[in-house]
């Protein structure tokens, strides 16, 4: 198991990468991370190892590590892996979800709908991440949830860009509504199909060439 110091360093790195404080290509200097997180150099090194193992950062020969640059092609390949794993989580969630969890899932969908209606895309983006977290929790399948979480971490920037595309939030909201309905109705096959269909549409959208929307990518 990871030491508390390593976890502190890992969390700090993850948040910084997720928020874009450390953009793709950013050099990770151990001394700087020690100063930033207040943990030991060896804990920082272990945190970098852990993030390198999941592909969030990459080692550069003799020069330490940097935040990995994920190309569109890679984002598609990552989503291709994520798709059947999300299908598995959706199926398990439909089998295992409790009543209070189903209620929370439905309520969360209403919040997502409101975010799309009001055009708050940053919030919608965050709510989608939370939705996948809730499905992962209801599935009670920590290994699949962990794999998906690692893949997801590499995709956040691409997905956020995607959500800025005109019309895209409505498409994704429709697909995710079907996912929530199928899980809440405890229909495993339909839930798996809904998750797969959603990610198939994400792959199709990622593969489309698009002008850079600018904005906070």
């Amino acid at each position, binding site marked *: 198991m990871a030491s508390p110091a390593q976890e502190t360093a890992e969390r700090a790195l993850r948040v910084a990468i997720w928020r874009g404080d450390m953009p793709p290509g950013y050099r990770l200097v151990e001394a700087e991370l020690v100063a930033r997180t207040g943990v030991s150099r060896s804990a920082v090194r272990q945190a970098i190892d852990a993030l390198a193992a999941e*592909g969030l950062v990459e080692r550069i020969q003799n020069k330490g590590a940097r935040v990995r640059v994920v190309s569109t092609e890679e984002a598609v390949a990552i989503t291709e892996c994520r798709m059947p794993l999300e299908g*598995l989580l959706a199926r398990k969630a439909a089998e295992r979800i409790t009543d209070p969890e189903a209620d929370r899932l439905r309520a969360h969908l209403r919040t997502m709908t409101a975010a799309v209606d009001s055009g708050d895309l940053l919030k919608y983006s965050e709510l989608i991440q939370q939705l996948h977290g809730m499905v992962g929790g209801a599935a009670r399948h920590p*290994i*699949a949830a962990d*794999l998906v979480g690692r893949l997801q971490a590499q995709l956040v920037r691409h997905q956020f860009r995607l959500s800025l595309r005109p019309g895209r939030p409505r498409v994704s909201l429709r697909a995710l509504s079907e996912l929530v309905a199928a899980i809440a109705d405890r229909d495993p096959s339909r839930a798996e199909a809904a998750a797969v269909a959603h990610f198939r549409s994400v792959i199709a959208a990622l593969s489309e060439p698009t002008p850079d929307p600018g904005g906070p990518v």
Partner: protein
Amino acid sequence: VAQVTGDGARLLSGVRARRIAEQRLREEITRGVVVPGQRLVEPELGERYGVTRNSARLALDVLIAEGLVERIPNRGARVRIVSTAQAVDLMECRQVLDGLLARKAAQNATDGQLDRLRANLERMRGAVAGQDPLEYFTLLREHHRLLRESACHPIASSLVERLQSQIVHHQFRLLFRPGRVQKSLAGLSRVVDAVTTRRADRAEAAARAHVQGVIDALLVEPAGE
């Protein structure tokens, strides 16, 4: 870069040494040379692989991050123990990713790769006929390696490799159960048939069905060993 030990042996250090130790230990865990629960002591590992203690420690850090090895508070590290329930969960992940790899292999494999898949399957048939589960195990790994190579999907391949190394010990034991290699061979024949005739949907379904057979076998495993 090299360090000289007390008895004059030269130990490698640096990035290359870490990689050597990492690869060798990963291989030994996969093959069951070191078993779940076994203590991993840095100086011993260093000596065994001819690298410095520090390189051995860095290699352990990598394998810990991969979930192959776990730290024990104040007592170093050991090969991670994977329960049957965890093995089933790992297999369920493997199931859907194997489906993806089989689909991609049906779409992307070169004719040469398909020939090698067929030839390897024939050798597996021979191992089953010759009642040689050890040989079958080696060929089984080659089968999966060929499929991963044919799929041209490095991300799915590396995920599957990592899942695989955590459950290989369970799978290895399964192969010694009466009738198991025959079932495994039948399942993989269907996968190879679908892949080599380039039917992607069928390849995905066959790969998933094959892993379901492994999961079912894991679940009927008698408690205790």
